[in-house]
């Protein structure tokens, strides 16, 4: 395999970790929000959706990376979409075979993984340029980051909206559920709240850094 100069990335821990935090597809890049908000009204749905997306992401990244020298530049987007659609069809039938209840709960959103911009974005921006190993690790990182984000929303929404997590009662029966949290507006509010929290943490960190710098310059 010929090596393209100064484009190949060394596989490090960072290749994996970037998707989890620094470039988290949901909280930082705000990509693929439709499934994030639509299926997170319970923790179980969030886990299933996260794993399905993880599988499609890793499989399509691998294939795109393997075929990257064969795909003509002009039709690359169409090719990526067809590759992704193939894997989504597989996932669709597998979930249908494993659990029909889950399939009905997720509805059209399994098939809509095709239109998830996280996956196309990875294929275009990373897998089409990097070696297979780096692509796989990066895709796993992104997929895990995506799943974590789904879980962040799913648990909060299920806990506040129904008082349960994965169906187990957490709050006592005196707890009055906030039904709005399971309904569509709750999705927007919870994601907005998470983004506020992350922005607050980021700004506090920056202020601390500034303060530390100020202290060292004053001291010397």
């Amino acid at each position, binding site marked *: 395999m010929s090596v393209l100069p100064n484009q190949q990335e060394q596989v490090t821990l960072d290749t994996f970790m970037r998707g989890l935090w620094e470039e988290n597809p949901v909280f930082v890049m705000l990509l693929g929000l*439709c499934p994030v908000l639509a299926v997170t009204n319970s923790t179980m749905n969030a886990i299933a959706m996260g794993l399905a997306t993880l599988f499609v992401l890793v499989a399509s990244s691998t294939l795109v990376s393997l075929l990257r020298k064969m795909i003509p530049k002009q039709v690359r987007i169409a090719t990526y979409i067809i590759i992704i659609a193939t894997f989504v069809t597989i996932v*669709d039938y597998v979930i249908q075979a494993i659990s029909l209840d889950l399939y009905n709960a997720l509805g059209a959103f399994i098939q809509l993984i095709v*239109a998830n911009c996280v996956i196309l974005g990875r294929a275009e921006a990373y897998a089409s340029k990097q070696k297979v190993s780096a692509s796989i690790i990066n895709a796993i990182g992104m997929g895990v980051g995506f799943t974590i984000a789904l879980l962040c929303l799913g648990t909060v929404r299920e806990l506040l909206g129904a008082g349960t997590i994965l169906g187990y009662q957490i709050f006592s029966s005196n707890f009055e559920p906030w039904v709005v949290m399971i309904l*569509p*507006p709750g999705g927007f*509010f919870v*994601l*907005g709240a998470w983004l506020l929290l992350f*922005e607050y943490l980021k*700004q506090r960190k920056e202020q601390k850094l500034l303060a530390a710098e100020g202290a060292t310059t004053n001291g010397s």
Partner: protein
Amino acid sequence: MDPNSLTFIFLNAALINNFVLALFLGLCPFLGVSAKKETAWNMGMATMFVMLVSSISAYGINWILVKFEIEFLRLICYIAVIASAVQLVEMTVKKFSPGLFRALGIFLPLITTNCAILGLALFQTFREYDFLQSLAFSTGAGVGFTVALMLMAGLREKLELAKLPTVSQGAAMGLMLAGLLSLAFMGFAGLGSSHA
């Protein structure tokens, strides 16, 4: 109202089950191009057109797929049709209105990955709408998408003038606004049910 009447299908897609605010489809352009009312309007129109074209093509394709019993190819066929429809719109807009083409920029090709359009094609197949019902459904969805986009753009233009704490500037505030809009649209839930 009869749930299969054309009026009900139209209203249902446009307001009660608004694609953006109730079904969470097409959020990327909803948050991405809603900064100005003018671009929001153009984006809404372009999306509406692609929705109509892909809805009609999806109807035809599904007929063929069912006839030959190869429904497992549905997803791949739909996405290919949508991609070509978007390409068609892109070329038409570029030829007849270069100004609009520049204004929409990257968001025009990105209509392909707008899940509202794929969602529309899938929903109309799952619900087994006939041809006229599909047309009403796709027009309703297009109108609903444009309404949501315009409302959001209007709100965000006002928000520019508001004093916000530094933490809440940016995407977080946009999502909160969308939440409030979605709450307001839940008020349409009773529409049409009183005559049932």
